[in-house]
């Protein structure tokens, strides 16, 4: 069976219905052969095409469709890599900070100039231990610094890959927040299916459930708070900004998932909308509370 051409078994009706194309595309994508052969001549011989010219036309249609669908599928699968990477980055960063605190406490007993944080761990890791007692502390600092480096590498990976996987979402939210939204939703496909009200509070699930239980007001924003569009807007207008931002993020995720191209209008629209919301601060408050 491994000597079959991609067109073997594909019907060559005049109709050229969608089923035939699907079949041909599947053969191009999944077929195999041990060796090439004179496929154009065989196609004419077998009646798949009347002429070699017609064969090449059919080959072109089938390879274009196969490459398009195969590339889209593989690219979509790449969102799962981003989801894992951003979760690993968060874990590595959090753990590095926790260990840096432990290190600061320990180092404070040995060094007069002991500092704190990951920066201090990096500094200490570069030092030579002068006494046997200092040795384990310096070694521990080295592990903390390595873990912080790993988090930085993961961030770099996300910054490099997110614009390929979701160009509009990465442009709008920034690569890391884009990956984080995909992570919270469970992937780009899941994010693209969520209503914008859900996207607005992704990452604020605790606050949302407290609200639903009647114990708190509804949260205005989840993880999108980390973006300048939300955080940089004064608190009275932050709900409006978060809602506008979430609305466009939802559109961006849908364009990235279902379509392919970069949509500049989407980004221009959002910038304009945020500027309008922020202009309220200059106009007084008379029309500022309508969104909350």
């Amino acid at each position, binding site marked *: 069976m491994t000597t079959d051409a991609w067109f073997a078994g594909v019907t060559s009706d005049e109709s050229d219905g969608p089923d035939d194309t699907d079949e041909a595309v599947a053969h191009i994508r999944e077929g195999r052969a041990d060796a090439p052969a004179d*496929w154009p001549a065989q196609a004419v011989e077998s009646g798949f095409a009347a002429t070699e010219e017609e064969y090449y036309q059919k080959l072109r249609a089938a390879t274009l469709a196969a*490459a398009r669908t*195969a590339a889209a599928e593989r690219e979509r699968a790449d969102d799962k890599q981003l989801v894992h990477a951003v979760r690993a980055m968060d874990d590595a960063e959090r753990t590095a900070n926790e260990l840096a605190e432990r290190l600061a406490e320990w180092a404070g007993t040995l060094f007069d100039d002991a500092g704190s944080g990951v920066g201090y761990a990096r500094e200490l890791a570069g030092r030579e231990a002068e006494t046997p007692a200092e040795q384990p502390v310096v070694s521990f600092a080295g592990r903390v610094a390595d873990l912080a480096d790993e988090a930085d590498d993961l961030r770099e990976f996300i910054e490099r890959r997110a614009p390929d996987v979701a160009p509009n979402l990465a442009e709008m939210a920034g690569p890391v927040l884009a990956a984080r939204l995909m992570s919270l939703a469970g992937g780009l496909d899941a994010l693209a299916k969520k209503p914008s009200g859900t996207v607005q509070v992704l990452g604020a699930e605790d606050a949302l459930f407290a609200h639903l239980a009647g114990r708190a007001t509804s949260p205005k924003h989840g993880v999108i708070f980390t973006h300048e569009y939300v955080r940089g807007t004064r608190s009275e207008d932050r709900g409006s900004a978060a809602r506008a931002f979430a609305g466009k993020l939802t559109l961006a995720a849908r364009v990235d998932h279902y379509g392919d191209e970069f949509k500049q209008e989407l980004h221009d629209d959002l910038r304009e909308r945020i500027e309008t919301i922020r202009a309220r601060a200059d106009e007084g408050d008379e029309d500022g509370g309508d969104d909350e």
Partner: protein
Amino acid sequence: MSDRDQSLPSGVERRTFDERERLATQGLPVYGEPTDGDWRVWDAGRSKLGAMLELGMDTGLVGDETVLYLGAASGTTVSHVADFAGPTYAVEFAPRPVRDLVGVAEDRDNLFPLLKDARKPETYAHVVEADVDVLVQDVATRGQARVAARNAQFLRDDGRLLAAIKARSEDVTADPSDVFDDVVDELAEAFEILETTRLDRFHDDHLGVVARPK
């Protein structure tokens, strides 16, 4: 108009753009390259095959060949190949560039994009025809000689392998000359090496190779 350059295939000419002589082919523009009527610049700085032609290597190309192109990436170079060649099969493994490659192929009747791994020819031997005239290889992967050897089965007896060997893909730390020696030695097991030229003027640490099957 300029004189026909005998080392260039028909369909590729040296033409003047902004007072500079540059390679050009006829076809729809792909990446914002300068155009003059329906001629468009084939930038040797962006294309290793373009650099091989620019440097006067004897590629044996005459025009209208059937071509198997390995490592087509976004289709920058292969679009020029499809402008002067016949049926052109373009293999690329990474999905993102294939999205652009499909766009390039949509504007051309003779360009067939394949999202396949050039190290596994059995996954496209049911599509790519036997006895192609030219095998172009520009893959940034370890084992470039092995990729060429595995794909030699597609070439006709007196066909040509036109390969751009990237030293850093084999070994980032080694001296490029040593890497090239090793790769050419390995290539010589399956091919007769006709010419090698460093492409450094246009592409750092790349070697252009013209060879034919043994």
